[in-house]
């Protein structure tokens, strides 16, 4: 029986000298190969006496495990030193910029439409739409604005024909009529969209956006109108308290009619909505005129309610501090990038309207 201790120290001496993967492979074959030292030792087990076998085998296994462990450590150290060597050569200037990418933007008008829709969705309104081209009836007559009425002067109209029957809608109010005619009450809708007036200067643009609101049911009174708009203004401007004034006015399609002003002040050259001693007109509203209900085939004896119209572009200007209305539609990439919104900023109730 060989002296396993001596063999072990021989093997360990050999391993000690292993310095690269080649000599490692060689040593491994010398030890564990078909004719390797340890393989040979195992072959001897069969030649031993029964009583010696057990002890021998146990010692031999111990030796095998130990050698294996040492070899594994050796290979790990090779891996490690190779990686370390690699890492040393792989240092880059991490401050260099990465590859090109593009960030899109959502236009403020679209963002505000989404914000407003989110708010009204919470209090039960759904969205309706109507055509941009209207005829005279839906835009004016059905809305209790007869021909030769001075109220028509307030709307400088784009016409598509010389008989002045086809026109670009001057407000979103025709959607009220279209909605009521095609369905049955109750109605609780908002209608955002493009509107057009023949007017172009610093504060007027020939195209702008409005949002129409209509709520018709059996017992809807002016108190509901007030509550709805108060809720809207508070939510939209994201302020706890807001000063609101309902001021009598006149629209042919509502009676009584009101304009709504909100309080504001100028702080550090910026407009602050909510309180202050100045008033800013933001929307027009009123109780739908019985003539309008009749024109839309709704019985004014049974149903009543309110309507309102608000300028979307103006809301965007107020909330996001944009000064020039005309810049909205000029597609200057610098403006769009500055005022635009990340497409992931979807206004929601639970996550907040704006960041």
């Amino acid at each position, binding site marked *: 029986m060989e002296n396993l201790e001596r063999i072990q120290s021989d093997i360990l001496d050999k391993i000690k000298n292993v310095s690269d993967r080649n000599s490692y492979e060689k040593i491994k074959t010398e030890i564990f190969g078909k004719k390797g030292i340890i393989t040979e030792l195992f072959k001897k087990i069969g030649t031993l006496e029964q009583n010696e076998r057990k002890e021998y085998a146990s010692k031999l296994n111990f030796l095998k495990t130990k050698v294996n462990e040492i070899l594994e450590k050796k290979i790990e150290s090779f891996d490690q030193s190779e990686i370390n060597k690699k890492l040393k050569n792989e240092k880059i200037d991490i401050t*260099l*910029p990465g*590859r*090109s990418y*593009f*960030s*899109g933007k959502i236009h403020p*008008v679209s963002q505000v439409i989404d914000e407003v*829709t989110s708010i*009204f969705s919470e209090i*039960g309104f*759904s*969205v309706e739409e109507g*055509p*941009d*081209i209207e*005829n005279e009836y839906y835009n004016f007559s059905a809305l209790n604005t007869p021909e*030769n*009425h*001075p*109220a028509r*002067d307030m709307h400088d109209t*784009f016409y*598509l024909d010389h008989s002045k029957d*086809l026109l*670009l809608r001057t407000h979103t109010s025709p959607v009220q009529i279209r909605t009521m005619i095609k369905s049955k009450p109750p109605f609780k809708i908002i209608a955002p969209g*493009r509107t*057009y007036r023949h007017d*172009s200067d610093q504060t007027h643009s*020939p*195209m702008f956006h409005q949002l129409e609101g209509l709520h018709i049911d059996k*017992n809807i*009174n*002016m*108190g*509901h109108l*007030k*509550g709805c708009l*108060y*809720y809207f203004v508070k939510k939209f401007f994201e302020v706890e308290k807001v000063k609101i004034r*309902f*001021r*009598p006015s*006149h629209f042919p399609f509502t*009676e*009584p009619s*009101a304009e709504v002003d909100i309080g504001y002040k100028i702080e550090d050259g910026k407009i602050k909505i909510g309180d202050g001693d100045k008033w800013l007109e933001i929307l027009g509203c009123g*109780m739908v*005129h*019985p003539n309008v209900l009749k024109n839309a085939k709704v019985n004014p004896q049974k149903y009543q309610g309110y309507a309102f119209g608000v300028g979307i572009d103006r809301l965007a200007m107020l909330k996001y501090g944009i000064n020039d209305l005309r810049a909205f*539609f*000029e*597609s*200057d*990439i*610098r403006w*769009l*990038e500055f005022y*635009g919104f990340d497409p*992931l900023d979807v206004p929601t109730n639970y996550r907040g309207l704006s960041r």
Partner: protein
Amino acid sequence: MITSLSWLKNHLSTKANLNQISERLTEIGLEVENIKSSNENLDNFIVCKIVKAQKHPNADKLKICDVDTGSENLVKVVCGAQNARDGLFTVYAPPGAVIPKNNMKLKTAKIRGIESHGMLCSGHELEQSSDKEGIIELVKKEKNIGDKYFKNSGEKTLDIAITPNRPDCLGARGIARDLAASGLGQLKKQPSIKISQKFKSPIKVSIKKEKNQGCAIFGSVYIKNVQNKESPDWLKKRIVSLGLKPISAIVDATNYVMFDLNRPLHAYDADKINEEIIVRNSKKGESFEALDNKKYLLQNNMCTITDKTGVLGLGGIIGGTRSGTEFSTKNILLESAYFYPSRIRKTSKILNIDTDAKYRFERGIDPNSIKLGLELGMCIILDICGGEASKFSIVGKIKDERKTIELDPKKFYQTIGLSITSAEIKKILLSLGCVIKMSGNKIKVLPPTWRPDIKQDIDLIEELIRIKGYDKVPLINPEKENIKDTLNHKQKLFHFAQRSVASKGYIESVTWSFTDSKIDNHFSELKNEIRLSNPISSDLNVLRTSLYSNLIISAKKNIHRNFEDLMLFEIGPVFNGKEPGAQSTMIGAVKTGKHSRKNWIEKERNFDVFDIKNDAIRTLNEIGISSSNISVSNKSKKWYHPGRSGLLSLGSPSGPELAYFGEIHPSVVKKMDLRIENVLGFEIFLDNIPETRKKIREKKPQFVISDYQKVVRDFAFVIDEKYSSGEIINLVKKVDDKLIKHVKIFDVYQGDNITQGKKSIAFNVTLEPKDKTLSEKDIDQVSKKIISKVQEITGATLRS
């Protein structure tokens, strides 16, 4: 409408101050837009004294005056007036002042080499008189030097926005009445008139009975032996406060009555009227010169005031120069008439005339104010100009179309959400001039003649809450319950697609719905342009038929500012006809310039068709159309590069069109002067995206995970160049669409070693077995099938 506190106090006894009045007016719907000094500029004009006037060394007719303006130093003013002399008190205007006559703003200037600091003024220049000769001579004392010349210019005026339903408030009295109704004072009674009117007007008046006659009543008074002159101070100040120019006592008196009682009057020089007044419809071709010094050519059926000679003026709109009053006028005819609003509006629209009278008549004048207007106008004129007045002549009449309205106080509660007592209703409506009769629980109301807007009970309800105050309306919190979904399918699609495109790096733009026909024609397949009859400018003359027109104009503007690498999109309507509804919703997107420029990490490269194709397909994927349902074909539109564009359609090349994409045609790019070569774009037809019956979650099959190895095999063929990659992919997939998961082209080559007219195409096929591991034999079998299918159909040869 402009008025002032002192003017309102002619009609209202009140202790309220200007601010209280102003606030109350806004609260009751007469919105005060502005409170301003009647004319701040007039405060600039100062009483001064010429200390010394010397001849200008370089000009015979000019003088250099040392002027005492009340400040420390004397001021040097060059003056051309003959009457400029030592010791004269006159009016000084400093640099910065605006001369009323010609709206010139004074500056310090050298006149013939001598610096002049301001100006000494004539009555003409200050619109105080027609006296152009010399500067104003004042009788003043030393202590007056430095005083403001325009004494009462300090009174502030209220500029009130009067809504079209309230013609009665286009006069001070109407406003005073509303204030009184709201509890801010008491409406004064109109003083009664005691003038002896003994003789009959020598001018006969008749209203011709004819269809479309625009005049209902024509009242007049003849005043003889007047002496027209400048108005006295009180009247001038009223006129100036309105922003009008004082002209003469007679004209100023008519204007005063208009703004006092909302009662337009017109004064004729009676001696210039040929015999009689006939109110009749005009005939086409008649013309006259109006007081705005323009000649108007009339059409048929315009309401004209005429005499034996012809047209004198347009009734209720504007008078004519032929019968205009002058300072020399001796006898006048004062008119107070009622014209129908719709006729006034029609005529003034056609002729494009806007006057204060027209503005009032088209809104509706109180038909009962004819006599009142004549009385007040006559009194003022007699007072200032003297003379003797005839009896009133009132021709014609008007049907009283007012109806008694039945008002149920309950309805007020139903509409407003607030209750009101009958007593309160009565009080408010009486103070507004209504006649009231109680009838059980209901109230019968006859509105006053000056309120043509009150026609039904809802109008009375508005009056009541307006006077009571909108702040009394209760606030009822909204209910949070939905009747139906907020958005329908199309609307959801719109919002989703919008953010989908933006998330690919595109910047959303919102452009006009109208555009330049010359540009739009590049992108239009319509036979007829959709023209506006009154475009705002010639380059916005049609409705757009494509989103490309404005997007590419926008791109161009940015490119010309050296922003060349752009990704812009718009989502919105394009039009295909003039009828309501002739529009569809589209997405248009453009990409110009380079994907990457000189860059340490990437090769510089242009955006190309495959960028834009990917953007279009990914957007369609994201809005719910899977790639397997999108057919790509080379069908195109005239505005695309014919070889580098295509169609994405649903299911098959002939399926519904989902999108076009590609390079914009080089000749369009050139014609539009984009100064950049590669302009790419896609257009998505949102209206063609089908609404599926099932939601995506419902359509998804059960998720099955395969434990078996996937296998990838490469193939390369030499094939006729007419076969597109898409065709080959489809061909291969069909061999076993259960097993073959992907076919991916990895190389396409034409050139050396490949026969002309052929191309080499290489692709790999991914096999994903579901039920077993594929053996070499299985794989070989599928490979053979693929090879033979491709060879069989296309005649391709396998490349080794």
